């Protein structure tokens, strides 16, 4: 797999990151060298091997269904750039 200009633009758009031409070139180079390196794994035969989701052998810890009163509005909104009437206020989403 090769990263080209189109791919890098798409990744940048999906990540909401703005890149200028110079940055795009740099990232194309970086990402391609990372991919080349990872591609060495293709030498291993993985036919009929299920993908591994996690390398840890421990078991997913679970909690009981107990709710804690958070009364969080003040704390949660503290870092919000804009808030109104107890809500986060964001630029109008037209949909």
């Amino acid at each position, binding site marked *: 797999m090769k990263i080209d200009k189109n791919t890098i633009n798409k990744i940048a*758009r999906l990540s909401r990151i703005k890149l200028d031409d110079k940055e795009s070139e740099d990232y194309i180079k970086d990402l391609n060298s990372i991919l080349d390196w990872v591609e060495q794994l293709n030498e291993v035969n993985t036919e009929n091997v299920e993908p591994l989701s996690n390398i*840890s052998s421990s078991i*997913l810890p679970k909690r009981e*269904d*107990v*709710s804690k*009163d*958070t009364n969080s509005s003040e704390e949660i*909104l503290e870092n919000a750039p804009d808030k109104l009437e107890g809500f986060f206020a964001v630029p109008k989403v037209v*949909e």
Partner: protein
Amino acid sequence: MNNLIKGEKYDWEIVIGLEIHAQVKSNSKLFSSSSTKFGSSPNSQVSLVDAAMPGMLPVINKYCVEQAVKTGIGLNAKINNYSVFDRKNYFYADLPQGYQISQYKYPIVGEGKVTIDFKDGTSKDIRIVRLHLEQDAGKSLHDQNPSKTYVDLNRSGVALMEIVSEPDIRTPDEAGMYISKIRSILMYLDTCDGNMQEGSLRADVNISVRKPGDEYGTRCEIKNLNSIKFIKQAINYEAKRQIEILESGGSIEQNTMLFNTSTGKTRPMRNKEEAHDYRYFPDPDLLPLEISKEEIGKIKSSIPELPDELKNKFIETYKLSNYDASVLTAEKQTSDYFNETINSDSELKNHAKIVVNWITSELFSLLNKNNQDLNNSPVSPENLGQLVKLISTNEISGKIAKDVLEDMFSSGKTARQIVDEKGLQQVTDQGEIAKVIDEVIAENPKMVEQYLAGKDKLLGFFVGQAMKLTKGKANPKMLNDILKQKLNKKN
């Protein structure tokens, strides 16, 4: 059954699949301990996990996992011992993580099926592809401020079960019946409160059209419908839209649509070019979810009687039709009410059909008219049982019984009290009825002439006159029989 709809040029078949989102009825969220209570003040039930503060880690709610398994069993589905949580990546203001924790390749529940029952006694299986657990997003409010969208994160992180059907549904009615059936199963299991108005149960609908026998057409997905009425409307509109395009030589563009509930129309969502690049990958914050056979067995043994089992029991015990039994078992409160009514008097078992009719048509329509619910019906099951007994023993006629029920509904009196107080017992005395009929015949010689000349419809007129004279209390069958006899004798 003909399920085709007519276009200008051809007959078309609609192909429908549903993705139902059912909120798990739990105290706390799927990966945090915040409360799930509906209608609290904005952002008051948001933990640092729900707000996606850096460094916070999700810890799964055991109860939510059990409810998903329970629901899977209720959908006759395969429970997977091993499932994985993935990140579904997209940007939206009410999704603070920038991704939704969901399940993609390895869902907790696999293939299953539910059965829907038609009025004509036939039924149909709708196959389920999967059920998976996922987080709900926050809520955006677009109409509170002219220049801002408001975001409330109380719903952020609440557990949802997404139930995906195969495209086995063919008509808007079937879609309605399917979601009703799912809702009914969820409510019997008590895994979701089924409240569509509050958004606890909502659906995305996939629709395509084709000529019968053809391959599936290109589909469009209508997002976020929260009533059965809207689902049917949206399907009808969208199917017509697609047929018009195809018949005028165009082709369908695969699209995500929104349904406008006030105009009844669908339109494509914006930002569609990025809509389908979710870049799923296993969430590194969560280990795979493993459930042992023993745990599944334990959950299985806790499952109550489900609508289909109850339906079969009703059919067998009371010789009810498939359709009657399915109406009775659609909601738990209805089947409970029926059970209490029919068990209130040993005689009623032989009149189950009458009991069903009085619950599902007469009582339901009174409840509807008064905006009330069966749970707090002013007419108790015992009292309804008493009324049915008065009908089945011919003590009062069905017509009078309707008035009696209305009286019971508003006054809270028993059927017996009302019948005794108002003297509503049916007249079953042959002589008395004959006397009234003689009177009617004597008073309407012209009508009798016309009747005898072949105007059969006039029979109803005579019946009506005689009923009026007996204040509706004459036994209708006897009245009819004697009337015919007397009139024909004149011939």
